[in-house]
């Protein structure tokens, strides 16, 4: 029997063609099953985390250091991004409004856009890269080096010890960082208006107050809170799911950032539809 014979048989076999036709369907089916499985596993981890909240003696001592590493250490990157965002918004608003609407509308656009959208969303996207990746790689490394198994063997609930304090720190610190971002973004827009757009402070403030509503700030904080939950929760989930060695940790980190960013954008649209 020649080496090629089975291949010729396969090509002529109508069953082979059917299999070939069904291959994309099979891959879609497998993708859907994998997605459903991931959602189920995520739900299971979330359920365990909610159940573990009562173990305050386990996660309590871990919370303060994580508030610092997740929160305070993230402030510089968030402020950097919002500084330049505020500047660009002021310049683009001036470019758009010149000759059509009064100049003080620059303040209105800077304030409204930063508070409602860019402050919370850009901060969260930046932190998905910094915080989400950091959590996924740390927990992923702990998973592949059996440190999470060691926690279990020492009778610690790893969800209470690792997941709960990170998620709580994210839920608490994201709104705090976002408040700093909003202030810095608006201040950057104001200073840019003074320095480059020949505006005065009363003009900028007039525009800023024109459409300002305290509900906008509440809206931003609700979004930031939910983004904190998502970024830390997704990071923990992919960290816990890590398999293999360094490559597995790399995959987990990438997935945490990509999936976290996607959920942030979906949630952003969700809150806009529900709360505005």
């Amino acid at each position, binding site marked *: 029997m020649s080496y090629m014979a089975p291949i010729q048989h396969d090509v002529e076999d109508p069953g082979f063609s059917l299999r070939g036709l069904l291959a994309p369907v099979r891959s879609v089916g497998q993708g859907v099953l994998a997605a459903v499985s991931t959602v189920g596993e995520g739900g299971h981890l979330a359920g365990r985390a909610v159940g573990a909240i009562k173990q305050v003696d386990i996660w309590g001592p871990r919370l303060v250091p994580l508030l610092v590493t997740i929160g305070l250490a993230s402030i510089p990157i968030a402020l950097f991004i919002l500084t330049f965002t505020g500047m660009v918004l002021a310049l683009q608003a001036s470019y758009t409004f010149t000759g059509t609407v009064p100049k003080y509308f620059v303040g209105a656009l800077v304030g409204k856009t930063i508070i409602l959208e860019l402050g919370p969303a850009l901060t969260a996207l930046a932190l998905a890269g910094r915080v989400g990746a950091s959590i996924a790689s740390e927990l992923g490394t*702990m998973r592949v*080096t*059996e*440190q999470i*198994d*060691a*926690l*279990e*063997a*020492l*009778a*610690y*609930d790893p969800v209470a010890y690792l997941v709960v304090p990170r998620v709580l720190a994210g839920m608490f610190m994201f709104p705090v960082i976002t408040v700093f971002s909003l202030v810095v973004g608006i201040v950057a827009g104001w200073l840019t208006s003074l320095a480059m757009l020949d505006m005065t402070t009363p003009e900028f403030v007039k525009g800023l107050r024109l459409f300002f509503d305290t509900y906008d700030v509440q809206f931003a904080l609700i979004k930031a809170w939910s983004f904190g939950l998502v970024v830390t929760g997704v990071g923990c989930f992919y960290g816990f799911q890590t398999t293999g060695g360094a490559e597995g940790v790399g995959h987990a980190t990438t997935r945490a950032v990509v999936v976290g960013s996607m959920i942030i954008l979906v949630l952003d649209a969700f809150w806009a539809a529900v709360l505005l």
Partner: protein
Amino acid sequence: MRGIHKSFGGDRILRGLSFAVQEGETLSIIGPSGVGKSVTLKTIIGLITPDSGEVWVDGKSVHALPRSDLFELRRKVGYVFQFAALFDSMSVGENVAMGLRCVTGMTEGEIRKRVSYCLHIVDMGGTEERRPSELSGGMRKRAGLARAIATQPKYLLYDEPTTGLDPVTTTTIDGLINRMAEELGVTGIVVTHDMASAYLISDRIAMLHEGSIRFVGTPDDIRTTDDPVVRGFVEGRPDLPREVPA
């Protein structure tokens, strides 16, 4: 363990594994790499859930226990991981203290004393402040052993405690395992490839082969067995068959 089956994907690792360990004895489990020895140890303390079968420890069915009772049971078990699994965000002292912090009623002073004593036992006195990344492989294993014995467990599970160690450190670890059994009456299960260690530390040796126990007996029994698969493994002879038709 009774009738344990465990598969990962399409690989059937454990196929009806059953064995019992007597109180106070040290049982070594030997077998080729990938045969499921570490899976067996992790199944014993509920880190891995079997597809079917039962594990009984201290009169309790491990996989039927509620989580809180499972943690209670785990406090009686020390686990020495193959690569130590030290928490790299903590110092050596904090690693050893981790299990003790779960034990209610111990003051910080008592915990420090116990940590110091356990590190002294494994010839690592004075290393409390060092980080795991600063330790050699042998020191990491000894620190892992110190962490496992800190809570004075009734049972100790050792996953390849001497693999990759120099002969002197191997002898030290073997001596510690014997001391745990003889002085403290600890019941031990040791997963190992190291036949010299297995002969020294074991009351009985079991060979895991194709997902179940192929042989179990005393060190003398295993030396004199005429089972070609067992002899091929313990004597390191690839010329003897690795599989024998039923």
